[in-house]
């Protein structure tokens, strides 16, 4: 009974698959925090104004809390890197690449949003929004199993409806001019 109980405790804390997944997540989280900290420290340490700022009385200055926050991020990042370093063994670049490929639609989606923003000053928001929504609705309709012609019709009419809605609500009623 005790043995079973002890075994249960062991499996809860030392499930190898779960443990590996957790430590791999810790490793990536550590990398993420370190990158954020590096960008923060770069901006903080290269900021000449912080050194020359006029500080009144015992005010700890504009860099005080920033430094504390950056140290927390740095220490946390190093901690998670060390915690997750065990998962580095046996890791293959190919498997990392494959897992990254799972997010290609999301990456493409972000790229198309940035492209839309860049296009706005050239062709206007409504036209850019129409291009964006018709492309994505066509693509996602195909993915959902609709036929090519059906997807094209669906994307076209839905995009027109979306653009009319955006124009009426934001441009006409709320007077927000994004162009």
């Amino acid at each position, binding site marked *: 009974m005790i043995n079973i109980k002890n075994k249960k405790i062991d499996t809860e804390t030392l499930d190898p698959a779960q443990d590996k997944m957790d430590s791999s997540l810790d490793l990536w989280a550590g990398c993420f925090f370190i990158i954020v900290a590096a960008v923060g420290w770069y*901006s*903080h340490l290269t900021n000449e104004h*912080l050194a020359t700022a006029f500080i009144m009385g015992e*005010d700890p200055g504009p860099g005080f*809390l920033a430094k504390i*926050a950056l140290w927390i991020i740095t220490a946390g990042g190093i901690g998670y890197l060390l915690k997750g370093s065990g998962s580095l063994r046996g890791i293959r670049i190919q498997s990392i690449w494959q897992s990254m490929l799972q997010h290609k639609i*999301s990456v493409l989606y972000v790229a198309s*949003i940035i492209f839309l923003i860049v296009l706005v000053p050239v062709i206007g928001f409504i036209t850019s929004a129409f291009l964006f929504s018709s492309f994505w*609705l066509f693509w*996602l309709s195909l993915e959902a199993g609709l036929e090519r012609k059906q997807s094209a019709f669906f994307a076209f009419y839905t995009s027109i409806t979306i653009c009319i809605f955006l124009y009426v609500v934001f441009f006409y009623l709320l007077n927000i001019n994004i162009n």
Partner: protein
Amino acid sequence: MPSIEFFSTLVDLVTPFALLVAALGVALGIVLGALPGVSSTMALAILLPVSFTMDQSIAIVFLLAVFVASVYGGSVSAILINIPGTPAAIVTQFDGYPMSRSGRSGEALAYSLFSSTVGGLLGLAILVMAAPVLVSVAMEFKSPEFAMIAAFGLVLLAFSSNGSTIKGIIVGAIGLIAGMVGFDMMTDVERFTFGGSALQGGIDVVPLTVGLFGLAEVLKNVSNSSNQNLSIPKITRILPPLKKLLSTWKSMVRGSFVGAFVGAMPAAGSAVAVAIAYANEVKLSKQPEKFGTGCEEGIVAPESANSAGVGGSLIPMMTLGIPGDTITAVLMGALLIHGLRPGPMLFTNNPEFVTGVYAALFIALIFTLVIGLLSLRCITAVMRIPTRVMMVLIALLCIVGAFSIRNSIVDVYVMVFFGCLGYVMNLLKIPVAPLAFGLILGPMLEENLRRTLMISQGSWEVFIDRPISLALLIAIILFIAAPFIKPLIKSIGSRKLYVKKYP
């Protein structure tokens, strides 16, 4: 006489335009809340820009209407298709979906709607009664207390975020940095602008929240955006027998109190409140085996708790300036844009606005009941909107929303940046909410901390000398130490057990 002020504000607020805005907010809130994948926070974040051109009082009517209605809307998909529209509706599906499967979907929605209204009204009553008491205490607070409250709120919110507490604290620190971008308010020194002019104006809370809670969710759902094959039941009978509805009043009241009190605790959140309310009902029931099979109390208790949590969560936000959860963080961002800083001073400087909030919440609750009842039959049509259409529309709304705050394209890029950041953080199971809390509470923490040190001439003892500040400091230390202490106690316990069994 707060009741007289409340009714006079209510009468002032009841104009045709305000009612139209409330109806629009409720309709949009129900629709967005009912759509799986669109949380109340996301609904509020993407509809925030609509309120920018409105007067303060009308804007708060609109935002609270969206808030209250999306909370109810979350239960619609939980009941009809067994997918909670919002995380807090998870418990509602335990009994709502079985009731719907037995051909009583209309009744299940009506139980949810009535209990939401009762819960919301009781939550509002608790807010009206509790807020002045808390404010009278908070009026005694000075800079050290405010600094500690901001730090405590930050730690508490990081502690309760999904995922690890330590990660939550680190993300809170990133939020603090995000809040420092731009000019320092005391010395006018630029911070974290990378020498350019684009970030000199700082990071506004709206692009950050729209990116984190709007675009990041869209990116998560875009690769899985087909809901074509959902079978949505037809709604036949709507109103449940009055006797049966009234027989659930005890569950409604109990659920409402649980919801209001748990909701009032910063960071506890409505998901915790509904779970406690449901567990409490099962415990008190004479027939606990009925739960999970479509019993009325199983819908009524969590729904009233969920709705009462709205009033509860407004208590710390309105009185102390601490957002209780992500939804109130977005709402607080909206108030800041309208030039209102929540906190005890709001009650002194803008008492008419405070009563306006109470009146707006009342209008929102009544409109949710009326529009909810009228739309019960056609809500199934909304559920048939393909997710891919919503994902494209929401992405476009995020862009327009981020732009509309300051008519700046930089804010759109900031929104996209935080959307990507939120997506990556979700993948790495890093909580995103503390980032928003850090941005909101950071300036309050920094300003009061530096002011305290200036007044005390650099002495940190002031935080220990003042009892409330000391109590908060101890609480902060305990919360930070908790994740380290817990495994330590566990390992000591297991070592003792091992030594006892194998001496």
